[in-house]
């Protein structure tokens, strides 16, 4: 086990938890940026400098494009209904499973830490993808899912080549651009919080959400509004 890679893997998984659990725009984007940038370094040996640079720039661009659209708003997502401790536990469990199963199959050429982080990202992405009702959660979930699978691929196939890094960077930019476009369209259509797949929330959800320590409540309160009181 490489301690430096383990730290990077933990950072990747932690960023993903913050991204899906936070309700504050700044915090959610910060978590996503942390995950995307740190994931670029999760390989052994590291990709060459140019490929690494492309990945880091692509990661930042993938976050910056949607950020441009929503940076003036305090909150754009309802965050996780389960709360960050549950998301963190899910990620931790998946992390351990990913790390533990990395050596079971022969033929893996990359670090086990990449698979651990990949499993964690996939596990954390399931909630937003299946139950996400706002654009940010759906988009971020999609990005985390693809990135997580990409990390599993690093664990199985080893350090990606330069061309693969460029295409992976393009995937991140493409998904980020699509998310930015949808957020922009939602804002133009007057859809509050990008809540385009709104469905009734369970009554208990409000209680769980209000206990979320990552929430700052600086945005407009939705408690008691027509949508949330359903």
């Amino acid at each position: 086990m490489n301690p430096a890679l383990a730290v990077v893997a933990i950072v990747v998984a932690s960023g993903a938890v913050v991204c899906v659990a936070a309700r504050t725009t700044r915090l959610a984007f910060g978590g996503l940026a942390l995950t995307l940038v740190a994931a670029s370094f999760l390989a052994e040996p590291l990709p060459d400098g140019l490929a690494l640079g492309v990945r880091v720039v692509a990661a930042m661009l993938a976050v910056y494009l949607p950020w441009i659209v929503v940076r003036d708003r305090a909150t754009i997502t309802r965050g996780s209904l389960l709360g960050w401790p549950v998301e963190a536990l899910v990620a931790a469990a998946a992390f351990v499973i990913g790390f533990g199963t990395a050596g079971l199959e022969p033929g893996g050429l990359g670090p086990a830490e990449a698979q651990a982080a990949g499993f964690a990202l996939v596990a954390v992405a399931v909630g937003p993808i299946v139950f996400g009702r706002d654009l940010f959660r759906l988009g971020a979930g999609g990005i985390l899912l693809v990135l997580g699978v990409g990390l599993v691929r690093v664990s199985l196939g080893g350090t990606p080549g330069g061309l693969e890094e460029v295409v992976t960077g393009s995937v991140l930019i493409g998904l980020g651009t699509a998310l930015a476009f949808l957020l922009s369209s939602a804002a133009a259509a007057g859809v509050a919080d990008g809540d385009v797949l709104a469905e009734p929330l369970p009554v208990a959800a409000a209680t769980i959400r209000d206990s979320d320590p990552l929430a700052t409540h600086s945005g407009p309160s939705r408690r008691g509004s027509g949508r949330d009181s359903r």
Partner: protein
Amino acid sequence: MSVLPFLAVTFGSAFAALLLRRWTFAATVVGLIGLAAATLAALAIGGGTLAIGGGTIGGSAYGRLFLFLGTASGFVVTLIALGTGRPRDLPAALLAGLGATGLAISLGDPTTAVAATIVAGSAGILISLAPGSTGRGIGVAARELRAIAVAGALVLLATSWIGRSIPALAEDPAIVGLAYVAIAIGVAMRFGAIPFHLWVARVADAAPDVALPLLTMWIPAGLAIVGLAWVDRAILPLVQVVGDLPLERTVVVAIGLACLVLGAIAAWIQDDIEHVVGYATVQDAGVVLLAIAALDPAVWTAARTWIVVLVVARTALAAWAAAIRARFGSRRIDDLSGWARRSPVLLLGLLAIAGASIGLPGLVAFEARATIIRSAVGGPLGTIVLVAVFLPLLYYGRLLAVGLAQPTAATAAIADDRPRRPPEALARSTFRLVLAVNRGLLVGVLVLLLAATALTTSAGGFGLTSAAAEDAPIASPGPSTGPAASATPSPAASPAGSPTAP
């Protein structure tokens, strides 16, 4: 020449058109120029392979034909969009989507190729919304983004897992089966195959009609080409070691058959012509899934032939639907009574499209589809399933019956196909005005052009059969190093693994 100039032209033009998107006219002009240049660049694609950054990019006759037809059709569809009033972002999305698809089908590494198809899907999001979309429309686009991510992740995982050496995989047949099903389901999701078909109807509702070819045909077709090549290169050689995956194949065959039969019936009972386009594509996608289910090198050429016929014919049908909507102001079939009497050009177009997509015994497209069905299903059931390929007669027949019926007052009020001069008062009018008063006719002629292209493709024109028989640039899985190596035939050496071996 390599595929690189094509990529440079498509991505460069797409970027320029997106930068200019605030000025719709300028963006459209730049996009049209880009599409024309990309068509020329596609024609110049040669067969060489370039090593770049640890990977390879290879041109092929099949890639050349696919990209040529894609960009040329895209050019015509953009012109039709100009005539039907919805061109915004279309050329940019076409360029980016086809560029990424071109990259995907040219790459040697399958995992990277699948990633490129995700880029193509993301480009499609840009045109998944009609101007002035509401929250519901944006929700549909968000679901599209979700489908792209999930399908892409499934296929990425499958190709990564099978990307290891064959001996390592031969020890665990379940993994091979799961990877195979993951690829098939990923392709099914992107085509909106049954049971993932609901989003097709939603996309048809929310997206502009001229966006449907890129969203539901060309981009999913890119993933299908990559998936098919990977199945041929990676799964097929393993079948000899781990067995022929009967359960997994049954699942994929069931999905394919459901699409083939239910897709046609769904298209028949729809009232909205854009839904007809969506479900007609679902039906054709069923044949692609049957090709994946066949696990037979004999369907390699047939499957790739069918994919090209599918995208060209359905692009023409989508263009026809856009022309009808613009001409008669409605997408509801019940409102279109007598359309064919008012527009014989569009009638000819629909007949050609029907001929191209159904085909006749002896035509390349028909034979390709029959080969796939016989290989995937086989026996008497295969013969019965072959009858299902004529089910599109139901919806084409309905459209024709409605078109040839007595026109309603609203339909009769629509100008017919006769060429017109601008009014006398504007005798010294500009060329632009002449175009404006004959817009319906011109759009009809463009649809007819696409329909003729579809018919030519269906008959095996443009060198389709020989191009489809070519080897794919995608590489085989890692080298055999373990003890099972001797028992595992190399895909390149094995007749079963050779894509060109019938």
